[in-house]
């Protein structure tokens, strides 16, 4: 039971009989141990004391019922998760006390290997707080009066955000007026740096607010925030603004550039393995200094008959202006000319990182030379002549 708690939505049905055995054992185990785990749940909503109060509105009553249900559910899930973790630890032969979430993920991946393409659809076992979305606490008191002054808008948190934003704008205006009146100069150090961060996306904002919002509402939010940061004294509201911004991930590739090794002639070389595109696989070696000699599977550039693949191969070299300063050796197999040349192109660009400066690296990144092309051939569909192509429409 414990193991199956969050895994059960995701496991193939064929494994059910295995689960049932575990399930029975765990059920017995569960009934014995319930009283002892109660103290851990003190921080949940204290619905019992609330329900003892006499004057209670209908809304409150309904809420209390729902809350009780939810709390019970979460308690059960939490318990099952812990048991499941212990079982998993035992199965993996490790110490259940020091078994962390990381180990759980590893164990699940080991015990239930899955080739499903989308990682979200693979089996998982996570703490229930992560699996089930957070719910709002009671929004009204026992008399049925809402705590929040915007309760009747239906989305109090969202409109509170807009309200706050508007207030901040107003404050900024007032401050600006004051500064002008005093004829003071604005603080040169107060700069709002927004280059390395972006606004929360709609989904992220929904999570923060615990409310679902529409596209229009999200647009309004952005409009308001943009107006706020466009004001000259927006830096005074930095704290408020940064709550709703997310830092951009810094480019990772810059850190991992390999240092070239040296061969017996004293030339620096870098070998890139696993250059892939479509069905082609291969490796590319770049040697510096060179004379622009290109060797593909022992042949020169005439390995490719057509102009297009040749252009593909030479593009990174010409882009970085290294065409007569390096030698390139490639071994490539599988796929056709276009796939092979694409793989070589990526391999050359990836290897050239070690020999170009930072500016050029950024340019290469922008030009898309360092991006892998993960596209594959799309399968043919039954009932139609190709992947997407439909049969010719004919009236009769």
């Amino acid at each position: 039971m414990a193991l199956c708690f969050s895994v059960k939505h995701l496991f193939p049905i064929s494994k059910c009989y295995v689960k049932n055995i575990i399930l029975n054992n765990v059920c017995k185990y569960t009934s014995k141990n319930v009283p002892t785990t109660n103290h851990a749940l003190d921080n949940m909503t204290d619905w019992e004391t609330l329900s003892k109060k006499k004057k209670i509105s209908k809304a409150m009553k309904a809420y209390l019922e729902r809350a009780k249900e939810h709390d019970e559910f979460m308690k059960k899930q939490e318990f099952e998760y812990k048991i499941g973790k212990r079982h998993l630890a035992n199965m993996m032969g490790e110490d259940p006390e020091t078994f962390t979430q990381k180990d759980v993920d590893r164990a699940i991946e080991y015990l239930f290997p899955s080739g499903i393409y989308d990682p979200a659809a693979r089996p998982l076992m996570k703490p229930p707080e992560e699996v089930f979305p957070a719910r709002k606490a009671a929004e009204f008191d026992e008399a049925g009066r809402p705590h929040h002054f915007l309760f009747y808008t239906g989305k109090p948190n969202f409109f509170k955000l807009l309200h706050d934003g508007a207030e901040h704008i107003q404050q900024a205006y007032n401050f600006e007026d004051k500064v002008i009146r005093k004829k003071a100069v604005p603080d040169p150090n107060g700069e709002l740096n927004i280059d390395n961060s972006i606004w929360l996306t709609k989904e992220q904002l929904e999570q923060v607010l615990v409310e679902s919002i529409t596209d229009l509402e999200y647009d309004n939010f952005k409009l308001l925030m943009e107006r706020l940061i466009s004001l000259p004294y927006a830096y005074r509201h930095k704290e408020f603004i940064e709550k709703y911004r997310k830092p951009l991930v810094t480019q990772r590739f810059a850190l991992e550039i390999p240092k070239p090794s040296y061969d017996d002639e004293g030339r620096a070389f870098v070998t890139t393995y696993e250059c892939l595109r479509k069905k082609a696989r291969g490796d590319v070696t770049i040697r510096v200094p060179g004379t622009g000699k290109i060797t593909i599977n022992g042949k020169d550039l005439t390995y490719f008959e057509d102009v297009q693949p040749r252009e593909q191969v030479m593009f990174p070299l010409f882009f970085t202006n290294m065409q007569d300063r390096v030698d390139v050796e490639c071994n490539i197999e599988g796929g056709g000319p276009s796939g092979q040349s694409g793989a070589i192109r990526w391999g050359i660009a990836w290897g050239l990182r070690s020999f170009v400066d930072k500016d050029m690296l950024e340019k290469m990144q922008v030009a898309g030379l360092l991006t892998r092309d993960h596209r594959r051939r799309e399968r043919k569909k039954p009932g139609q002549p190709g992947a997407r192509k439909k049969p010719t429409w004919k009236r009769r």
Partner: protein
Amino acid sequence: MISRSWRNLCRRYSQTVTFRTTESSPSQHNEKQIGLFYSVNHDLCKQLFAYGGLPKSFAKQTKTFTETAIMVRQPALDLIDCIKASDFNKPVIRYVMYGEKGSGKSLTLAHLLHYAYEEGYLIVHVPWVSEFLRRVPRHKEMSNSQTREGFVDLPLDVAAWLLHFKTQNQVLLKNTELKISRDYVWSKRESTVAGSPLSQLVEHGINRVKYACDVLDALVYEIKQLSNSKQCKTFVAIDGFNGFFCPLTRLHTPTKKKVKPEEVTLTGSFLELAKNDWSNGVVVVTADQLALPDDHQDSYLPRYLLYKKGFELLDPFVPIEVGRYTDKEFLSCASYYRDRLWLRGPPEIETELKFTSACNPYKFMEQCAPL
């Protein structure tokens, strides 16, 4: 319009021309002129190459460029040096030119033909062997040979070739010194007696198409005799020579039987010329991938292309490789194309073109076309 052509003219002649040589006689060409273009006189061009000899794409280009400019390249110079240095009393030396597709074998041969013409050789030039054996137009004239059992004649093709031979050697054939040594009896009424000029034999072949193939046989014999007796020196140039050795031709008899190349009479005649049992001559042949069917084009080396049969027939020979452009040749060619407005745009594209064409002359020309 006038101003534009004026501008072009100004541009063309304002700068010193680095890709052209004024030396238009191939015998005077030397190492200094490698990579430079020389233009062939238009009339001469018509005389030498009127019935083929220049590759089709190049012939088209000469029309576009309004001149026939041939680049002086190393293989041609080597060959000319060899010919100059060789002893003509010894049996003929065979030269085999080989190289990748589009690397300029035929044009080198054209250069050599020009040289042979200047030096006063009797030219026996087959523009493209596959024209006889592999190209089958809708009405290909074929007949069974009357003199040789089981052989096939291509009378129209041979007559056309005789015409080509006549135009190429029109100066030499006027010389009545070239006399035939034997009596040839074609039929009851027609015969060519010994001592009549060679041109009469050729004329007979052209006028009486029926006997063209027999005339060709006789002509080959006579040429050998004349060369041996030092009456003339002969230059034999056969382009796509390995076409004679492919397993089957595309021809078939009225009974739908596939014809092998050795069953065609003209094959025997030309192979006779390629043997080294005569002297006072030069034989230059090319081995070309394009002369063979698609399934036998893996390598461009002569042993592979000539098959065992051809290799043994030619052995010993002097192999001469015609390679891709060197850097110098490429630059000169690019500036020639720029001069002819065949190539335009920023100067950087030349390095790119060098890359994409891999310095292959034909590919380079083709890729410049849309630029």
